[in-house]
C-alpha cells in the first residue's frame, strides 16, 4: 500500500531531493517536442483536412451534436463519454490550428500520465520514453486517421489507475472496493479500452509493490503479499461488474463491450492500412508495456536501485546525507538536450517509414471537392505522384473539369479511370462513395437517388451533418418544406454546420438568397418527375439519357454521358448523341468530341465533310498526323514512336482510344 506522501517522494525527476534546483513542471524534452508537433500538425498535416474525412474516408468516427438527448444517448452505453468527447473534440479539426492544439494536448496528457506512472514505479528519469505513445499518436494523425477515441480511452485508464495508486486509503478491503468502483466507472465512461489499461496498470503497480524501490522502506514480506493480493483482486471484481453491466444494464454482449474503443475492435481499425494500425496498437499499449518493462528491470536489476549503505558512502569519503552523484562522462545539460531530441528523431523515422505520397493528395482532393474549390483540384492534380492512381481523386478531377468548363476539352490531360467517373468501382458502395455520388446525382437532377444515398448515410451515422444538409435541400427542391425543417433543425445542433442550417431556415421563412434560390431552381429544372419509372439497377448512361429526356439542356448530364462514352471507347454513341450539342449552347464542337467523331468516321470508312460535321480543319490535320505516326510504329521503333505520340498527342482522345490510357509524360 502506498500513501500520498510516499508517492510524492517517489515522483519524477523533480522530487524534493536536497539541493535540487528549481524545476520545470514537466521535462525539458516536452518543451522541444510538443511545440514542434504543433507546428508540424498545423502546417503539414492540416487537421482541417481530417475534418472532411470524418464519416466518409474515416467511416466509423464519432459524431457530435449539441443537446441533452444526444448526451443522454451517448452515456447509455459503455464508452459513451469517450465517444461523446471524441466527437466534440473532432469538431475542432475544422480549424487547423485548433485541431493541432487539441491533438498536441492529447499527446501531452498521454506522455505526462505515462511519465507519472513510471515515476511512481521508480523510473524517475523517464521523460523520453514516456513520449513514445505521443509520438505514435502524432504519427497516426499524419496518416490522416482518427485515433482520438482510443487515445482518450487509454488516457482515462491511465488517469484512473494513477488516481487509484494515489488514494490515501490504508485498509486493503476499502482500497479494493474503491479500485473496483473506479474500474467500473472507467468501463462505463471509456469502455473496455479504459478497463484494460486500468487493469494492466493496476496489476503492474501491484506486482511492483512486492519489490524494493529507492528511498522507500519495505514492509514485511507477508504484508506486501497480502496487499498485492487485495490489489490484484480488483481485477476480477471489476471485470465481473463490467460483465454484469454489459449483459444486464447496457444489454449488449459483454464480449463486444470489453472491446469498445480498443484497437482490437473492428470499427476502430476498419480500413486502416498496416502502418497506422500498428501505431494504434503502439499508442494504446505502449504505456503499460513500458511500465511492465520498468518493473521487470527493477526486479532483475533491483540492487542497482538500492540506496548505498552508510558504510559504503563513508568508504567513498562522502557525507552520508549527501546524495550520491552519478559520475558521467558528459555534462548533464547537453546530455539531457540530446535525450530531448530522441522523440523528435523517432518521429522523423516514423514519418519516413510511413510515408504515403498518395494519402495527402487524396485527402486534399476530398477537402477541395467538398468545398467546391475546383481550380485547386486541378492544381493539385499536377502534383500527383506519377504512375499512381486513386479512383476518388480521378472522380474529383473530372468534376473539377466539368465545373471549370474543360471536361470535353482537357479530360485526357489528367489521369482517367472509367470507373472513377461515377464511382462504379465497388460492389458495395462505401460511405465515401455514397456521399460523393449523392453530391453529383443532386447536381445532375437525379434527386431521388441522391435522397436514397443521403438517407443511407443518415441511417448508419445517426446525425451526419453533410447528409442532413443534402436531405434538407432535396426536400426543398421537391417542395416539402416541413420535412426540410426537420432536417435543418437537426442540423442546427451541429457545431460547424449549424450556421448554414440557420441560414437555410431563414430562407424557408422569409425567402432564399439569390444563390440559394438559383441552386434550388437549377436542380428542380433537371429533376426527374416520372413516378412510374424505377431506378437504381440500370446502367448509368441510361440514367443520364433519362435526365436529358427530362431536360435537354442538362449540360452536366450530357458532358458526363459523353465522358463515359469516351472512356469506354464507344465512339458510335458519341456520334449518336452529337445532335444534342445544338440544345446546349456550345459555340463549336468540343475538341475531344471532334476527335471521337473522326475516329468513328474513320472506323466506318466514311468520308468526312468538315463543314457539315462541325469538325475543325486543325483537328482533322492533327488526326491525319497522328494516324501517320501511329501507323509507322513497328517492333523496332515502338518505344520511340510511343514517346513521340505521348509528347505530341498524349492529351488527345486519339491517344487514349489507341492505347486505352492517358499519355501523361514522366
Amino acid at each position: 500500500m502506498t500513501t500520498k506522501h510516499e508517492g510524492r517522494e517517489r515522483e519524477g525527476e523533480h522530487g524534493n531531493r536536497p539541493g535540487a534546483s528549481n524545476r520545470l513542471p514537466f521535462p525539458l524534452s516536452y518543451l522541444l517536442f510538443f511545440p514542434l508537433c504543433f507546428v508540424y500538425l498545423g502546417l503539414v498535416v492540416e487537421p482541417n483536412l481530417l475534418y472532411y474525412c470524418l464519416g466518409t474516408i474515416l467511416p466509423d468516427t464519432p459524431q457530435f451534436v449539441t443537446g441533452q438527448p444526444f448526451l443522454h444517448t451517448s452515456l447509455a452505453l459503455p464508452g459513451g463519454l469517450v465517444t461523446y468527447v471524441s466527437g466534440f473534440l473532432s469538431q475542432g479539426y475544422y480549424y487547423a490550428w485548433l485541431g493541432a492544439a487539441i491533438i498536441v494536448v492529447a499527446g501531452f496528457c498521454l506522455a505526462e500520465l505515462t511519465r507519472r506512472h513510471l515515476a511512481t514505479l521508480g523510473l524517475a528519469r523517464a521523460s523520453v520514453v514516456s513520449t513514445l505513445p505521443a509520438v505514435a499518436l502524432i504519427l497516426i494523425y499524419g496518416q490522416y486517421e482518427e485515433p482520438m477515441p482510443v487515445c482518450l480511452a487509454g488516457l482515462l485508464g491511465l488517469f484512473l489507475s494513477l488516481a487509484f495508486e494515489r488514494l490515501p486509503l490504508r485498509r486493503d478491503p476499502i482500497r479494493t472496493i474503491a479500485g473496483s468502483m473506479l474500474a467500473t466507472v472507467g468501463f462505463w465512461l471509456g469502455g473496455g479500452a479504459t478497463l484494460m489499461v486500468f487493469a494492466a496498470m493496476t496489476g503492474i503497480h501491484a506486482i511492483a509493490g512486492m519489490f524494493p524501490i529507492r528511498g522507500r522502506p519495505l514492509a514485511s514480506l507477508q504484508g506486501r503479499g497480502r496487499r498485492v493480493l487485495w490489489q490484484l483482486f480488483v481485477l476480477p471484481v471489476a471485470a465481473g461488474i463490467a460483465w454484469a453491466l454489459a449483459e444486464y444494464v447496457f444489454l449488449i454482449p459483454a464480449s463486444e463491450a470489453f472491446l469498445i474503443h480498443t484497437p482490437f475492435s473492428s470499427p476502430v481499425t476498419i480500413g486502416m492500412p498496416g502502418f497506422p494500425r500498428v501505431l494504434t496498437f503502439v499508442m494504446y499499449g505502449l504505456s503499460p508495456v513500458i511500465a511492465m518493462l520498468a518493473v521487470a528491470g527493477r526486479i532483475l536489476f533491483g540492487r542497482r536501485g538500492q540506496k548505498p549503505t552508510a558504510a559504503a558512502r563513508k568508504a567513498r569519503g562522502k557525507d552520508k546525507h549527501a546524495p550520491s552523484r552519478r559520475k558521467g562522462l558528459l555534462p548533464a545539460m547537453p546530455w539531457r538536450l540530446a535525450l530531448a531530441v530522441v522523440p523528435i528523431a523517432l518521429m522523423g523515422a516514423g514519418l519516413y517509414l510511413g510515408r504515403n505520397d498518395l494519402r495527402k493528395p487524396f485527402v486534399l482532393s476530398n477537402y477541395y471537392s467538398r468545398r467546391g474549390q475546383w481550380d485547386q483540384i486541378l492544381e493539385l492534380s499536377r502534383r500527383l505522384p506519377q504512375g499512381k492512381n486513386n479512383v476518388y481523386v480521378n472522380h474529383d478531377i473530372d468534376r473539377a473539369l466539368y465545373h471549370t468548363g474543360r471536361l470535353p476539352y482537357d479530360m485526357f490531360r489528367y489521369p482517367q479511370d472509367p470507373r472513377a467517373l461515377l464511382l462504379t468501382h465497388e460492389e458495395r458502395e462505401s460511405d465515401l462513395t455514397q456521399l460523393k455520388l449523392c453530391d453529383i446525382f443532386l447536381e445532375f437532377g437525379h434527386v431521388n437517388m441522391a435522397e436514397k444515398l443521403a438517407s443511407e448515410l443518415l441511417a448508419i451515422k445517426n446525425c451526419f451533418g453533410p447528409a442532413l444538409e443534402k436531405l434538407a435541400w432535396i426536400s426543398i427542391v421537391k417542395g416539402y418544406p416541413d420535412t426540410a425543417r426537420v432536417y435543418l433543425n437537426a442540423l442546427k445542433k451541429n457545431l460547424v454546420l449549424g450556421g448554414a442550417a440557420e441560414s437555410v431556415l431563414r430562407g424557408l421563412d422569409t425567402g432564399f438568397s439569390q444563390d440559394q434560390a438559383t441552386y434550388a431552381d437549377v436542380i428542380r429544372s433537371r429533376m426527374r418527375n416520372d413516378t412510374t419509372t424505377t431506378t437504381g439497377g440500370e446502367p448509368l448512361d441510361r440514367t443520364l439519357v433519362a435526365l436529358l429526356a427530362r431536360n435537354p439542356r442538362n449540360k452536366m448530364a450530357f458532358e458526363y454521358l459523353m465522358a463515359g462514352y469516351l472512356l469506354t471507347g464507344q465512339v458510335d454513341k458519341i456520334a449518336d448523341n452529337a445532335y444534342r450539342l445544338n440544345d446546349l449552347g456550345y459555340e463549336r464542337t468540343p475538341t475531344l468530341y471532334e476527335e471521337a467523331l473522326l475516329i468513328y468516321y474513320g472506323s466506318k470508312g466514311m468520308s468526312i465533310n468538315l463543314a457539315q460535321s462541325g469538325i475543325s480543319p486543325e483537328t482533322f490535320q492533327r488526326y491525319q498526323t497522328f494516324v501517320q505516326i501511329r501507323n509507322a510504329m513497328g517492333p523496332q521503333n515502338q518505344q520511340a514512336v510511343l514517346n513521340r505520340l505521348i509528347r505530341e498527342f498524349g492529351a488527345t482522345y486519339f491517344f487514349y482510344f489507341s492505347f486505352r490510357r492517358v499519355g501523361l509524360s514522366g
Partner: protein
Amino acid sequence: MRARFAGTAIFFSFFVVPALGIVGCRPGAIEQYSEVAQEPNLSPDYTGTVIPANIAPLNFRVIGDGRAYSVTIRSDRGRPITVHSKTGQIRIPIRRWHALLDANRGRDVFFDVYVQDDHRRWRRFLPVANAIAQEDIDGTLVFRFMKPLYHWWRDIGIYQRQLADYDVSVVLHGRSFGSGCLNCHSFVNNRPDTMSISLRSATYGSDTLLAQGGAVDRIGTKWGYTAWHPSGAVAVYSINKVTQFFHAGGMEVRDVADQDSALVCYRVESRKATSPKALAERDRLETYPTWSPDGKYLYYCSGPILWKDRDAVPPENYDKLKYDLLRVSYDVATDQWGQAETVLSADETGRSILLPRISPDGRFLVFCMCDYGCFPVYQPSSDLYIMDLNTKQYHKLPVNSEFSESWHSWSSNSRWLAFSSKRDGGLFTRTYLTYVDSEGTAYKPFILPQRDPTYYDSLLETYSVPELVQGPITVRQSLLAHMARAKPSVRPVIPITGASPKAVPSDPWKERE
C-alpha cells in the same frame, strides 16, 4: 465583521435578489389584457381534439413572437393550472394535469393562452377546447423506433412508452444482437404478457422471439405480420418474399412488393406450424392476418400474382396489384379451417385493401386503402377506413391527411385508435391517437405528447407500428437480449402442401457490419 458583511452581500446578490426578481417578474393572475379574436397557433396542434384522462400532459409551444407567455388550463371542476414561460414552451405539471382531467371526464378542458408583447401588454386568444373522454386509453404504447430506412440500418429498437407520463424504455434493441433488426411485434388481446418479435441478424440468424408468462422461447423461423388468436393458443403469421425498389421521380422514393407471400398457422402448445390451403394459394399473395375478437374468423388480405417472373425487381405490373379483404372461419378446438369468403373486394373499391384490424368489441374493422400494392406506409395515397361489421358499410375516416396513414392499433376498450401518419411533412412517421365513439365516429387525432414541445421539430426517427397494450411489458429486457443471441429452442417444420410453400422468405434490408 467585514468578511461576514461581504458574505451576506454575496448571498443576497447571487441568491435572494435573483429569486425575488424571478418571483417578481412572474405575473400573477393576468387581469389586464386585450382579446384576440382567434385561437392561438400551437405546436403540436392540440386544439379541438378528444383526449383520454390518463394521457400525459399535452405540452406545446405557442407560435408567435412575444416577450412572455402564460397559459391557464382549466375545466369545470378542480383548480386551474397556470404555466408561465419566456420562450413560449408550455410544460404542464403531470400530477395536477391528471387530477384536473380525472375530475372532468366527459367535459372540456380549456387552454387560455396569453402572450405579452414588447410593450408589456398582454393579449388573450380565444380559449382552446379539448374534450375529455370518459374512457381511458391503454397505458402503454409499444413501437419500433428507427430512421427512414432504405437498404442499410444500424440502430433499430422496439420501445415502450407509458402514456400517462413520458417514460420510455427499451424492450429490445438491435445492438443487443449485433446491430440486428427487429419488427412485427405483436400481442394477444392488448395484453403485455404474451408478445412475439421477429429478428433479423447476420450474426445470430433470423428467428422469432415468443415471450409468454415471463419466459422467452426462440422459434427457429422468422414470422412476418403476425396475428394472435384471442385464446393465445394460435398465431397466424405471414411469410413474405419482399423486394424493395426505388422510384426515379415523385415524393416517395421507396416502394415495396411481395414477389410472393403466404400465411402460416402456428400452434403454441404443440409447437407445430401448418399452412392451410386457403391461406397459401399458389397464384395468390396472402398477408396481413387479423382475428375476429371471438376467434371464429381470420381476416386477411389476398391479391393475385400478376407476374410470371417471381424474381424480377420490380415485378411486372406491380403498380396494378390490388389486394382484396377476405376472411376464413376457424375452430380453435378442432383446428379446422373453413372456406375463404370475400369481405370487400378491390374490384368494388378500386383500391388495394390492407392492414385490417378489428376492434376488441367486434363492432368495427379499420383498414387501409391505397392506390396499389402491399406497403401502405410508402404510399401517400394510403388512408384509413372503417367498416361497421354489423352492416358491412364502410367509409373513410376523417383522420386522414394528404400523406400516408397506416399501421393502426385498437385499444382494449375499442375507444382509441393509435395509427401512423406522415402528415407532418410527408416523410417521418409519427404516432397519432384518435377517439372512436361507440357509433364509429372518429374525432380529430392528436400527436403522441412529449415532454419537450419541440421534440418532433428535429426528430429524425420514425415511430413505426404503434401497438396499444394495457400495461408495461412484463418480460425482462435482459432475457430478451440474451435470447436474441441464443440458438432456437423451437424449430417448427412447415409441412409442404400442394399449394405451399411458394414463398422463400427474404428481405432486401441489410445491417451494416
